[in-house]
C-alpha cells in the first residue's frame, strides 16, 4: 500500500471574500506500515491534509493517490478517528463497532469480528453500554475499534488523544502502538504534541503555517518500545521544537504586522 500526495494545494474562500491558502504544494509519500505524525502549529493545514486523504475535502490543485488510484470520496479503505469520539449516541458500544459492517451489508458473515475488535481495544463487558455511560478514553477506544473493523488500508487519526487526560493519553499511545503492530496497520496522525509524535511515529512531518507547507520530514531511527528519557529521543524532540519555533516565530511576525 502506498499513499502519495502529489503537489496538493488547497485554498478556502473566507466569509470576507479573501482566499486563504491552507496547503501550498504538499508532496509526501506514505508506505505500508508507516506511523506518520503530522505536527505543526494550529491552522497549518495538517487537519486539511488528513481530510483530503479521507476524501471529506477536495484539493484545489493536485491529488492524493492510494495505490495509484485518485482519492475522490470517503471510503472504508481509510478509517478515520476524530478528536471527539463521535460515537453514535443512540447505539450501544457493540452496535457502534458493528456499524461499518452493517452499512456495507457484510455483518452476517463477519459477525464474530465485532467481539474480536471490542476485545482488541479492551472493552469486553461494555458491549451493551451506551457511549454516555463510558469515560472519554473508553469512548475513544470504541471509536478506534469502529474504524478498524473494516480492515482499512490506513487509519487516519485527527488528534485522537487531544481530549484525554495525560495519564489516559500515555496509556492510549501504547495501545495504538500495540494495535498497529497486531494489525500491521499504516497510521497517519495529526497532533500538537511533540513528545507524542516522537514516541509514536516512524516519520514526523513538521509543517509551517501560511504559506502552509511541509517544513521538514524527520525519520525517527529509534526502535519500539521507546524510552522517553533516551538521549536520541530528547535530541529529536528539541530538534522538532526548534523547527516549530522557527515556524512559529514567522507566524507571530505575520500577525504583529
Amino acid at each position, binding site marked *: 500500500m502506498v499513499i502519495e500526495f502529489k503537489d496538493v494545494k488547497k485554498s478556502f474562500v473566507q466569509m470576507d471574500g479573501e482566499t486563504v491558502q491552507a496547503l501550498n504544494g504538499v508532496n509526501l509519500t506514505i508506505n505500508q506500515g508507516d506511523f506518520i505524525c503530522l505536527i505543526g502549529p494550529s491552522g497549518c493545514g495538517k487537519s486539511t491534509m488528513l481530510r483530503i486523504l*479521507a*476524501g*471529506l475535502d477536495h484539493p484545489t490543485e493536485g491529488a492524493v493517490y492510494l495505490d495509484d488510484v485518485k482519492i475522490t*470520496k*470517503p*471510503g*472504508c479503505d*481509510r*478509517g*478515520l478517528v*476524530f478528536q*471527539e469520539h*463521535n460515537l*453514535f*449516541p*443512540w*447505539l450501544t458500544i457493540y452496535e457502534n463497532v458493528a*456499524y*461499518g459492517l*452493517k*452499512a*456495507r451489508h457484510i455483518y452476517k458473515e463477519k459477525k464474530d469480528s465485532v467481539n474480536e475488535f471490542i476485545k482488541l481495544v479492551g472493552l469486553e463487558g461494555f458491549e451493551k453500554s*451506551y457511549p*454516555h455511560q463510558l469515560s472519554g478514553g473508553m469512548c475513544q477506544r470504541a471509536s478506534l475499534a*469502529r*474504524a478498524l473493523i*473494516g480492515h482499512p488500508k490506513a487509519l487516519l487519526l485527527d488528534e485522537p488523544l487531544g481530549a484525554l487526560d495525560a495519564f489516559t493519553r500515555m496509556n492510549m499511545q501504547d495501545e495504538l502502538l500495540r494495535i498497529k503492530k497486531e494489525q500491521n496497520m499504516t497510521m497517519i496522525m495529526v497532533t500538537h504534541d511533540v513528545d507524542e509524535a516522537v514516541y509514536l511515529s516512524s516519520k514526523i512531518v513538521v509543517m509551517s503555517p501560511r504559506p502552509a507547507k511541509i517544513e521538514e520530514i524527520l525519520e525517527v531511527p529509534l526502535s519500539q518500545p521507546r524510552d522517553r528519557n533516551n538521549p536520541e529521543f530528547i535530541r529529536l524532540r528539541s530538534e522538532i521544537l526548534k523547527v516549530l519555533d522557527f515556524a512559529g516565530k514567522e507566524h507571530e511576525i505575520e500577525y504583529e504586522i
Partner: protein
Amino acid sequence: MKNLKSSSASAELHAPAVSSFPEKSTEQREKLIRFIKPALVLISTAAAEIVAVGLPDSAKHQKAAYPYFAFFVLAATVLYFLIAVINYGKDKNFDKAFYRAPFFAGTVLFLNILNLVTTKLAVLPTLYFPSLDRVFGTLIEDRTLIFKCVRYSAEILSTGVLGGLIIGFFMGVGIGFNKHMSYWINPIVRILGPIPSTAWIPIVLIAFPTARSASAFMIGLSVWFPTVVLTSSGISNVKNSYFEVASTLGANTFWKVFRIGVPAAMPSIFLGLFNGICASFVALMTAEMIGAKYGIGWYVNWQKEMMCYANVYAGLIVIAVLFYLIITILFKIRDRVLGWQKGVIKW
C-alpha cells in the same frame, strides 16, 4: 370507622412511649407512620361512603337510579389497593407501592366535598352542577352511545394523526436532506403551517365530501405542521461529523439518511409529534362541533345544548381519560425509542 379509631389510638400511645422507652418508640413510630398512608385512603373512602349513603340527597336534584358515586369510590379504592398490593409484591417496597396514597385520599376527599355541596346540600346551581351520582351514572347508563362516540372519534383521530405524521415525517426528512425540497417546500410550510387548522373550516367543509374526511384532514393538518418543522430542524442540527464518520465506514446516502439522520433527530421528532398530538385534540374537538354525526366532542356539545350537564361532565371525563391514555402511550414509546438519551423528561 375502625380505621379512624386505630389512628387516634396511635396518637394516644405515642406521647407516653417517648419518655419511657425512647428506642422502641421510634421503631413503633416509624411502623405507624408507614401505615398512615394506606390508612388515609381508607379513612377518606369511608368518609365519602358515609356522606354518600348516610346523608339524604337534596330534593332539588334529579334522582339517580343507583348511588353510582358510592359505587365508583368503592371500586376505585378496591382497585387502588389491588394495584398497590401487586406493586408491593413485585419489589417488596412498601413506601413505593403506597407513594400515591395521600394523593388518592386527597382526590377522594375532594370528590366527597364536591358531592356534599352538590348532591347533598345543593349549594351550587343544580342545572350546571349535577349530582355526582348522575355524572357517574351517565358513564354506565349511556355507555352504548358513549362507546360509539369514542370509536367514531378514535377512527377520525387515528386517520388524521397517522396521515399527518407520515406526510410530515417524510416531508421533514426531505427538507432536512434535500436542497431542492428545502427550497420549494420550506416556504410553503412556513406560510401554511402557522394557520390554525380550525381556520380552514370554511374551505374544508366545501372541499371534502363528508364531515368525517374534513375532520380527519383538519387533524392531519394540525399534526403535520409541528412534525415537519421539528423533523427537518432536528435533521439539520445533527452533527456533521456523524455523517462524515458514516461515510468513512462505507455508508451510502440512504443509510446516512435513515440510520444517522433520523435516529439522531429522534428527540426532536418526538417533540414535534407530542406538539402535533396535543394540537390534534384541539382540532378533533373543534371538528366534531361543526357537523359531525357522532364523536366524543360532538357528544359534549350536543349534551350541552340539551342542558344535560351530567352528560357533559361524563363526556369530559371520557375525553380526559382517552387523551391521557394516548399521551401516556406516546411517552412509553418515546421512552423505549430514546432510552439511549440521558435524562429524558418523564410524563
